[in-house]
């Protein structure tokens, strides 16, 4: 049953082919068997999961099931979980037990989902390879010498190896879509504000968005249904109605125009990856979609804009880690400023320090206008390019990443090369747009992702296009040999 989608597991539970307890035990056994070699989990919450499963079985027996009753999921360790350690992949929070649940956690629990554990991630979600985690790198189940992508790398590896059926993630510059692409999953980043950020450890508040890593678009729709919608506790949460996503993706196929930014297919894109993405685009043509070239004139500046805006916001958000109120505290009590410096010097890893310092640099006196303000202006131009493109097309499609999964250690010492991994994904974050990565083929045994970007709040249309694609293809159902 570990190779089932959430939708199929739900049928099995409702049809009493297996119980929630059996299902939970099965996945916990797989975690015990395989996670040693993958390092996808930071915490496994077996006891709590089995208690939740018993509760789910009682509800199922009484005919009181809700949308996700008994379905096993995992949360990226960036989501606060009451009574369970929330580390954000950092030594700084190695001892942190949140006094409350994130809204995403609370809503999925209320819908009946069972949490099996918290997944590994790049420290404070800063990375594209899961190598910056204090808890060590996560390995890609397709090739354990390679990265699973990041920052939601643990979630990606856990779902890919069928250690859990679905997982949450967060996406600030591509942190759901890039690992989904490198792992052969469906990764959804909703519109900025569609899903509450309450209880999500903050990295870059104008970009961060919670989403899902699943096998199928159908499963993404199931989870989004529960986590989307207004939350009074997040002032940037959107007060907009939540459509019935599951129904929406099953409505008859309509005429669709898909924009293709030809600049995405330049020399920066690996030729075999390009061929797989082109083949994916032709599936949409076969479905009756029209492909149309679109121009995003400023998109080439998205990486520089991101590496001003995101570090600036991070340097401010991470100033809360002071060794006084919670988290790591360095030894010694000689002087307050020295205590702050030692605590942060010892508590943060190298990439987090670089981002804090970059942020401090671009916000400092004399540089603010030239960097931060300039970046927010170019961000506006990038956003306007998308707005204009969506006057002519329904969705925009292209590659998710420039290459398939790279080797562990290959880029870890060159931050700029690492940053360029997110060249196709950052635009959607800067403009606050929803986007999804779906598997569209393989290159040398490694999965390739195709990215669809939609106008604001059009998750239903995005997931519908992805769902129809997945009815025509089976790339999303492939499992690495030893994890079948």
């Amino acid at each position: 049953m570990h190779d089932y989608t959430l939708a199929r597991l739900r049928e099995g539970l409702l049809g009493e082919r297996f119980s929630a307890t059996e299902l939970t035990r099965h996945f916990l056994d797989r975690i015990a068997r395989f996670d040693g070699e993958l390092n996808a989990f930071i915490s496994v919450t077996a006891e709590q999961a089995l208690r939740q499963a018993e509760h789910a079985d009682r509800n199922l027996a009484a005919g009181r099931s809700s949308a996700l009753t008994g379905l096993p999921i995992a949360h990226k360790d960036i989501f606060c979980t009451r009574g369970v350690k929330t580390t954000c992949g950092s030594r700084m929070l190695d001892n942190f037990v949140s006094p409350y649940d994130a809204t995403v956690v609370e809503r999925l629990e209320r819908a009946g989902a069972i949490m099996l554990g918290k997944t590994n991630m790049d420290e404070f979600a800063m990375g594209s390879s899961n190598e910056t985690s204090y808890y060590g790198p996560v390995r890609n189940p397709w090739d354990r010498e390679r990265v699973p992508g990041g920052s939601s790398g643990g979630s990606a590896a856990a779902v890919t190896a069928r250690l859990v059926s679905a997982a949450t993630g967060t996406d600030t510059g591509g942190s759901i879509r890039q690992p989904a692409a490198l792992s052969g999953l469906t990764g959804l980043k909703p519109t900025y504000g569609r899903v509450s950020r309450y209880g999500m450890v903050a990295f870059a508040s104008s970009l961060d968005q919670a989403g899902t890593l699943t096998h199928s678009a159908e499963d993404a729709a199931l989870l989004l249904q529960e986590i989307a919608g207004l939350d009074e506790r997040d002032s940037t949460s959107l007060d907009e109605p939540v459509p019935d996503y599951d129904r929406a993706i099953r409505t008859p196929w309509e005429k669709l125009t898909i924009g293709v930014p030809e600049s995405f297919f330049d020399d920066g894109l690996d030729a075999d990856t390009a061929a797989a993405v082109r083949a994916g685009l032709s599936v949409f043509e076969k479905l009756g979609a029209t492909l149309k070239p679109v121009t995003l004139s400023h998109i080439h500046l998205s990486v520089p804009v991101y590496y001003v805006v995101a570090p600036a916001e991070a340097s401010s958000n991470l100033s809360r880690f002071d060794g006084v109120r919670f988290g790591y505290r360095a030894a010694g009590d000689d002087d307050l400023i020295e205590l702050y410096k030692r605590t942060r010097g010892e508590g943060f890893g190298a990439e987090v320090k670089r981002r804090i310092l970059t942020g401090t640099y671009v916000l400092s006196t004399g540089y603010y206008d030239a960097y931060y303000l300039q970046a927010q202006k170019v961000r506006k131009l990038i956003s306007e390019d998308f707005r204009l493109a969506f006057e002519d097309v329904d969705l925009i499609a292209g590659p998710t990443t420039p290459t398939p999964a790279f080797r562990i250690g290959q880029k870890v010492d060159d931050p700029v090369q690492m940053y360029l991994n997110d060249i196709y994904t950052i635009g959607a974050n800067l403009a606050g747009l929803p986007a999804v990565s779906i598997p569209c083929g393989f290159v040398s045994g490694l999965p390739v992702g195709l990215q669809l970007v939609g106008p604001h709040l059009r998750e239903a249309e995005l997931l519908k296009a992805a769902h129809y694609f997945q009815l025509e293809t089976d790339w999303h159902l492939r499992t690495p040999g030893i994890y079948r």
Partner: protein
Amino acid sequence: MRTASEFYAVSLKSEDVEKLCSLARLEIAPAESADLLAKLTDIVRLVDELQAQDTRGVVPMAHPLDRPQRLRADVVTESDEHALYQANAPLVERDLYLVPKVIE
């Protein structure tokens, strides 16, 4: 404010990195500093590409969906949970967070 052309000439020096570390309250081990300087220089070069873009008349983005900040009624919604929150604090005494002495 510096002009765009001056930025192309910017090269970070180790004193600049020391100043940034001080502003960010971040201790860097001497062994880390050369590598840090080299990597920050690469990052600054990457973001310097922005300086070439003409943005005259462009209003900086304030919100990705052009929405105003949602406000709530000015009423108390939270209760006093200090004991729960302080359970995570490294050092607490009589409900107070302990820090090194700051006033002589």
